[in-house]
């Protein structure tokens, strides 16, 4: 159940930030910071509303997902990709390693990985030809000794 709530938080964080940034024209920094301020203040004032895991993790997951929503509309144009990026962000966030615990900027790095992976999906699938071509060249290079 906790995992499900974190994933929903990730999706909401990404889409709402993108909405405030692009449609309300508030700029990326204000959209991300203001929304996270609202969410974290809510949990700061009401710490006993949900269980301790959620109280601790929802603001963190939300601010991380809001970095995903800071993407420019040139890079991502449709909400479905943002939702996918939010889901990928939540998966990495839930599995995050304890080695980098407490490092500032780790959330931003997670958001960066999620966005890069999401943006790669349409490009890779639409340029199937290019990749197959690459594999052909690779095969040629691999077996060139036998051919000669």
């Amino acid at each position, binding site marked *: 159940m906790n995992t499900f709530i974190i994933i929903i938080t990730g999706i909401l964080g990404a889409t709402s930030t993108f909405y405030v940034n692009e449609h309300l024209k*508030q*700029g*990326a*920094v*204000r959209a*991300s*910071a*203001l929304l*996270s*301020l609202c969410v*974290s*203040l809510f949990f*700061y004032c009401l710490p006993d509303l949900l269980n301790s895991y959620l109280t601790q993790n929802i*603001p*963190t997951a939300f*601010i991380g997902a809001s*970095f*995903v*929503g*800071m*993407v*420019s509309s*040139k*890079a991502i144009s449709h909400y479905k990709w943002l939702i996918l990026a939010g889901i*990928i962000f939540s*998966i*990495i966030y839930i*599995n*995050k*390693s*304890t*080695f*980098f*615990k*407490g*490092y*500032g*900027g*780790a*959330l*931003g*790095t*997670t*958001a*960066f*990985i*999620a*966005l*890069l*992976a999401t*943006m*790669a*999906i349409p*490009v*890779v699938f639409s*340029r199937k030809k*290019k990749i197959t071509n690459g594999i052909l060249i690779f095969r040629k290079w691999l077996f060139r000794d036998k051919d000669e």
Partner: protein
Amino acid sequence: MTKPSNRLKTSKKTHKAIQVFSKFAIMCVLTLFTIMIVLEKYKTHALESGIIIALIIITMWLGYKYLDVHLNEYTYEEFLVVIWVPIGAVLCYFLNIYGALGGVLSTALTGTVASFLPVLNTKSEYLKKLPPAIYCGSFIGMSSVEIAPSISFVIVAGILSGVFLLVSKSIFLGIGGKLGMVAFGGVLMVSFVYWCYIWLGL
């Protein structure tokens, strides 16, 4: 003395080298970040998560190869903008540690205040560039006490992240999380040096 055309060629080469190096460094940090997760999952036998994250790494590298998110020309951020990164870091660190507000709340507070700076003078181009720099610095201030034990650590990490922000102006355009990535690079390098200093007695 070299001819002007020759000099131009050399400087272009340097710019290109800097750009390629910073792109590669970013991808290395990202891969390190994800490989640590996979290693940890391997230890605890959580196979599914390990496989999912390994798939994400592969997609990320494909994206790096095929996506076109970089500018062809070599531009750098202005020095006067970058100087605000350490200031944002110190502000956020004070709120986080001495104000006991917690990482998320102090970053959000710093970012909100910074985003209203351009309202002071709507005609100024300089003020418009400040919010991203201050927001980038505030991520450094999010670090916990175990990682960033003193204010000088935060200042050095802020200066280093400022240099990274200066260099990375024309790469990975418009991808959210670039600011966090830059801050992470600064903190990672300074904590590595600190670790060498403390544990190896250098």
